[in-house]
């Protein structure tokens, strides 16, 4: 009897377990994408021109990425934003020596005017990016220094020949900026794409009213049958952040693809409850403190070390994340991505210890040794409310706690860069924003010959480490070298110091489905996987 009963009980328990564990899967299966509807989103700034090869602002990507396809793209469902998958490329092979990449293109892809897309279009687009003609601007040309040539041996194949092997090449090709243009148009006029749209993407161009909005409609002939789900989209240009929040709150817009502040998120959740879904992720942006190595006393690494030891990063992570768009304590890579140092190892670096009192005591000792006890200096900061200003206030307060008197000087945003280049500062806020999380893109600024090395730290050891990791094709080996790089940069020499990783917060209308947040606001904007629930 008991045998029988216990079997019933266990099967009941099993059934309940299966349901609770399997329910989400069941529910997702129920959540089948629904076709139809227009997605309305707000964009803080407008595209200066329509050619992504020459632009750098998300104001180009957000309204326009849906019109185009790229050869490779970053997996839109991968939260770390580091996995390349094929867009126009169906499959690819890499030669044994890592110097030849061959891509097989999809068949039956058409441009919006009906013409077929072939390898010559891919070759023409990449020639424009990597080997631009005179008078043509290609902003990311230097990222492809390793490419020797781009070939199109047959209409379905594209081949890249490299001068040296590069571990990050595939991810590099998945850049959201490398839109594939029509070869025939480029042959006639290289500047045509600056003012016109013609792509192979999931949405066709309808209209752009300057200062107002951008409209796109579904491409019925999109190669990925069944997609896109949306009938169309409308991007509204709103520069004031409070107006953007008001738009989402008043349900006049579904989503904003850059990021909102914690206060905005809280007020939206409070006002709309479960009509709002919040997605959060570490952001591929970070603020650093640049110290001018050519000005005393910042040429002394003891002073620099003291300055990083003074910062209680963990306490700030807890508190600043409530009021500013920062959160995680980070090293040289976005936490959670393949090459990021795990927290238990990060703790060993200067300024990352959990014992802040010990750190600050060491800081005071170092300052005294260096003869820099109780000094005052200026800290220049950019005039942007988030998160520059809160981080500035925090830094000044932290340095005050080791006896340093710091005066902040805000430089207007557009005048900031020239100031940094001139080296006209003692300490200043430095910033790094990438469109893909990749050490080859994030680290060149610390090299001694980089134009972005504002502190003018000429460290040959660091240069060497960088080159070694860039050529390493085995990711474990790369990780090892990167750890050494990080240690030297942030702990031994303290050429720069990281504050906190930015935090991307996207509270959006719960009806928006099929969109996953990634660390970069330049990724996952094609909108082909997005659909609107009832």
């Amino acid at each position: 009897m008991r045998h029988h009963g216990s079997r019933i009980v266990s099967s009941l328990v099993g059934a309940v377990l299966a349901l609770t564990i399997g329910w989400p899967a069941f529910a997702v299966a129920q959540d089948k994408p629904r076709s139809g509807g227009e997605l309305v989103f707000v964009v803080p700034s407008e595209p200066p021109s329509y050619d992504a090869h020459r632009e750098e602002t998300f104001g180009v990507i957000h309204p326009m990425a849906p019109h185009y396809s790229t050869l490779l793209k970053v997996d839109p469902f991968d939260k770390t934003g580091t996995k390349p998958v094929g867009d126009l490329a169906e499959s690819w092979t890499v030669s044994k020596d890592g110097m030849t990449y061959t891509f097989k293109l999809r068949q039956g892809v058409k441009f919006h005017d009906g013409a077929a897309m072939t390898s010559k279009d891919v070759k023409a687009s990449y020639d424009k990016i990597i080997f631009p003609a005179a008078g043509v601007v290609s902003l990311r040309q230097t990222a492809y220094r390793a490419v020797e040539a781009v070939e199109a041996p047959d209409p379905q194949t594209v081949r890249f020949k490299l001068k040296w092997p590069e571990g990050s090449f595939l991810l590099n090709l998945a850049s959201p900026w490398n839109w594939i243009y029509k070869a025939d148009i480029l042959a006639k006029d290289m500047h045509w794409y600056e003012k016109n749209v013609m792509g192979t993407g999931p949405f066709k161009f309808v209209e752009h009213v300057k200062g107002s909005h951008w409209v796109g409609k579904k491409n019925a002939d999109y190669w990925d049958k069944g997609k896109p789900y949306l009938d169309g989209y409308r991007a509204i240009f709103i520069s004031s952040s409070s107006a953007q929040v008001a738009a989402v709150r008043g349900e006049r817009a579904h989503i904003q693809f850059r990021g909102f502040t914690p206060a905005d998120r809280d007020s939206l959740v409070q006002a709309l409850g479960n009509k709002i879904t919040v997605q959060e992720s570490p952001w591929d942006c970070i603020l650093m403190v640049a110290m001018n190595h050519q000005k005393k006393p910042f040429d002394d690494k003891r002073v620099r070390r003291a300055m990083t030891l003074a910062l209680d990063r963990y306490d700030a992570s807890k508190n600043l994340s409530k009021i500013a768009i920062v959160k995680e304590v980070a090293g040289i890579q976005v936490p959670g991505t393949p090459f990021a140092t795990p927290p238990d190892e990060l703790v060993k670096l200067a300024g990352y210890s959990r014992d802040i009192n010990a750190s600050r005591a060491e800081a005071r000792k170092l300052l005294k040794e260096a003869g820099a006890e109780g000094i005052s200096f200026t800290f220049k900061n950019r005039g942007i409310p988030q998160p520059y200003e809160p981080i500035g206030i925090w830094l000044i307060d932290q340095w005050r706690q080791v006896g340093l008197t710091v005066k902040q000087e805000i430089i207007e945003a557009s005048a900031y860069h020239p100031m940094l280049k001139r080296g006209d500062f003692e300490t200043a806020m430095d910033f790094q924003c990438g469109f893909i999380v990749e050490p080859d893109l994030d680290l060149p600024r610390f090299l001694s010959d980089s134009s972005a090395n504002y502190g003018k730290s000429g460290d040959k050891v660091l240069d060497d480490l960088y080159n070694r990791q860039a050529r390493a094709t085995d990711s474990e080996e790369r990780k090892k070298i990167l750890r050494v790089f990080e240690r030297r940069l942030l702990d031994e020499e303290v050429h720069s110091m990281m504050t906190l990783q930015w935090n991307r917060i996207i509270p959006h209308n719960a009806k928006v489905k099929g969109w996953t947040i990634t660390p970069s606001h330049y990724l996952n904007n094609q909108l082909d996987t997005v659909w609107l629930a009832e």
Partner: protein
Amino acid sequence: MAITSPIDPTVTGVEPAEPTTQARWWAATRAFALRRPLGAIGAIVIVIMLAVASVAPLIAPYDPVVVDFGAMLTAPGAKHWLGTDAFGRDVLARLIYGSRTALIVGFGSAFIGATLGAILGVGSAYFGGRIDLYLQRVMDIFISFPLIILALAMVAILGNNLPNLITAITIPMIPRCALVIRSSALAIRELPYVDAARAAGFRHRRIILRHMLPNVMAPYLIMLTAFLGQAILLEASLSFLGLGVQEPTAAWGLMLRGAAVEFAETAPWMAIFPGLAISLGVFAFNLFGDSLRDALDPKLRTL
């Protein structure tokens, strides 16, 4: 009015007291206060502001600059009368210290602007001819130039600190004051006794100082008080745009920037109190200035 005093000095041996200058000032003030209660209210508020600003370190309950994350975003209550901001800094303390910034910027720019404007206006009116023509054109150019762009450019070029902020606010005020003073001065210049003075060969400086300046005192004071209110508003607007005073200094306009707007719903005290302070300050200056204008010259048609 030859009314003989009922107290004949020859009888009592005591001289009837002549009203002293001090007593005259006091009487004038009282008359002003009674006849123009609005102006009096304005004046009282201004005096309170000045008092608060001067003893700020004594009356502020906390240090306005120290960050205290433990107390962030607390509502007004016993510990923090007006609540705290996003960094845990006491709002009341920041308001009190902020009055210093407001008054320094307000008085600094208004005084310098009005005075320089007056000098240019009088000079332009007095010397006339080519000098007048050129000066007027230059004034016209600056007046037609959009104010906010001028301020933006000044701050971007000169850098973002207090003296530069005062400069940026002063510059648009100078031509406006100059124009007003000039028209008053012109009227005086036409007067016969000024002509006579020139004919008699008196030096320019003497005529200007002795005759013209005292007579433009009225419009000068009116412009000064008008500018005081405007300067405070302008500082608030520029700080709001990020072009004014820097963090972590306390300034009313700066307090309205960033976190105050974002948290306006959940922590409204951050935005309400600085806004009220600005309004009150400007209101007081404008009330006072308005009444002053009425008292001195109701016929003045200028802005």
